[in-house]
């Protein structure tokens, strides 16, 4: 362990709160929801102990949380919040509003099933259904990665003036205790420059935001949002690289695990990656040429990186812990679109595995891989368990 980091035993939620604390946001509107609540409680405890200098706002709903986040960011301050599931869905209108206002808010979302019926299990449909709202989306697999990603997300978001969402799976990540290296404040301060956006709400230099725009202005505004999104994969890679120089930890934009010479590659996101690593190890042990590609940055999808990573691969197996009715697994369909028209043409098998929080063990993934080897790739995602 390096001298500028301290080992602590933290849950994913606590690691998120530590990441937020170290990033020094000045305004934190937040509303409790299972399984995100410990993030809120940890932040209010930090504040009560005098170690977190932020205006914490506790409104009546997640809708008001995001409504408060946007103008606070427009004043020129760093803003943090956290939510899950229904809370994220309640924010939907404001998610679009935040990216339109070019406010680099960072929000942790604990991926939880979407009602109805009520359920509290890990499932990424909540955030994946927000993929068109103009937010950068990260998916993390551990408490350590959650802490690191909250800080990296600010670095990227503030360069492109887009909001960023850090997604962690309910319970598997949010509530599991793990040893986490918590960097010193000075290290994070040296990594994150002060937030100073070019336009602000300021009585000394009067500007307004939100006034009605013409078709042409709106068109150009969306174009500038697209240009900002296009810059994200390379900036995210750079942010990760610079973080690694300070902490010796890198997570990549996508991560290739044991992909050398692989003919079969599993592609997934979030906590499923940890399980898939074990399955890959077991299959490699048995002599199969198999690897894992972890998609850490999902929005914008790092298309060039994925094409490169999957070039020369025969079979791609996508594990989706989400379901878009009438569409299938979101990552499956996104990956098919990303590879279409390129020289990279593996067979892509989409498996709806773990939807609703159903347990997917390493042995189960081995089983899926063996089944896929004997079947044709279907255009539709397949229900498996």
């Amino acid at each position, binding site marked *: 362990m390096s001298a500028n980091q301290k080992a602590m035993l933290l849950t994913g939620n606590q690691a998120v709160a530590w990441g937020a604390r170290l990033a020094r946001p*000045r305004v934190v509107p937040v509303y409790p929801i299972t399984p995100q609540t410990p993030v809120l409680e940890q932040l209010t405890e930090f504040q009560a102990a005098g170690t977190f200098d932020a205006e914490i706002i506790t409104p*009546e709903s997640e809708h008001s949380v995001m409504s408060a986040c946007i*103008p606070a*960011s427009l004043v020129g301050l760093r803003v943090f919040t956290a939510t899950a599931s229904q809370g994220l869905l309640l924010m939907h209108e404001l998610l679009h509003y935040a990216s339109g206002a070019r406010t680099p808010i960072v929000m942790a979302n604990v991926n939880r099933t979407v009602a109805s019926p009520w359920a509290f299990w890990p499932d990424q449909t909540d955030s994946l259904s927000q993929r068109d709202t103009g937010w950068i989306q990260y998916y993390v697999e551990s408490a350590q990665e959650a802490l690191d990603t909250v800080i990296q997300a600010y670095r990227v978001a503030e360069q492109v003036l887009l909001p960023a969402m850090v997604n962690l799976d309910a319970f598997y990540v949010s509530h599991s205790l793990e040893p986490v290296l918590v960097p010193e404040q000075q290290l994070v301060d040296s990594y994150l420059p002060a937030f100073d956006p070019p336009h602000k709400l*300021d009585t000394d230099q009067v500007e*307004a935001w939100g006034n009605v725009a013409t078709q042409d202005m709106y068109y150009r505004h969306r174009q500038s949002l697209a240009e900002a999104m296009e810059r994200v994969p390379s900036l995210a890679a750079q942010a990760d690289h610079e973080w690694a120089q300070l902490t010796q930890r890198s997570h990549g934009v996508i991560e290739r695990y044991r992909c050398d010479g692989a003919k079969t590659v599993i592609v997934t996101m979030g906590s499923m990656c940890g399980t898939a690593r074990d399955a890959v190890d077991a299959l490699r042990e048995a002599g199969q040429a198999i690897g894992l590609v972890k998609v850490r940055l999902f929005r914008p999808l790092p298309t060039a990186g994925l094409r490169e990573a999957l070039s020369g691969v025969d079979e791609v197996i996508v594990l989706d812990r989400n379901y878009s009715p009438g569409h299938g697994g979101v990552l499956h369909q996104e990956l098919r679109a990303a590879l279409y028209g390129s020289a990279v043409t593996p067979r892509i098998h989409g498996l709806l595995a773990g939807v609703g929080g159903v347990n997917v063990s390493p042995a189960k993934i081995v089983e899926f891989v063996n089944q896929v080897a004997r079947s044709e790739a279907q255009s539709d995602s397949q229900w498996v368990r």
Partner: protein
Amino acid sequence: MIQIEQANQEAMLCSGHAACPGCIDALSARHVLTAMGPNTMAVIPPSCMAIIAGPQPYSSLKIPVYQPTLESSAAAATGLRRALDAKGKHDTQVIVLAGDGGTYDIGFQCLSSAAERNEDFIYFCLDNEGYMNTGAQKSSSTPHFARTGSTPAGKTSRKKNLTEIMAAHRVPYVATASAGHLPDLLRKVEKAKTMQGTRIITLLIPCMDGWGVADDAGLMTARYAVESGAFPLYEIEDGHRYTLNHTSKTRPVADYLALQRRYRNMASVDIETLQAEIDEGWATLQERVATSERKHHA
């Protein structure tokens, strides 16, 4: 206190804005903004005021404006206020200029929440008693019997009493005001400025188009509303100290109704019902004022 002449000279609302001819919304906002002064930021949700505030790249207001979603003004004002506090800009006032739809209806949840937390801003409800920006449909502020696009035969329920509801949150200041009684309006803005916490002032805004009022009759309509007791001018401090500002009720409601096409062809029995409702509301208000005076002057 600012004088009316001063408001005309030091206008914080520029000419050339997009309000209808004779608009009381624009007139009221001009005076409110001048009374607030330049060290102010405004939150303006979708409403007539958002149109008056101007399309990009223009802004009719000489202060920073943030236009939030329709239902989130008080939450947005909270975020703005706390961010200014975090920056040490405690002297900058945050105001909301919202319509009645954005206040009584869709924005009510977050307004109640902000008032419960006693967030530090002044909330002006520019109450034109309906969704006038979408062509005059009813809101929960629309009075009994008024015809709107969604109540073509007349509204069947009564106007929500926002002032009493907000006073029940025990916020420091809730008041009604009207451009028809301009010195009283300006005094209330100045008074609210000296206070801290959630302050809510509801301004009655006769709407030329939505109410069917002649272009030059806006102020007369506003005055008749007060004189008939349909819109009493009063203040409630800390949820219980009542002050009635216009103490007499000198006009039958029929005078007020006759100025407005939204009450056209009203049956005389309905006019009697409305008169009885206003009389009852006026009597209740008198009782509350008397109780408050007894308690505080005892």
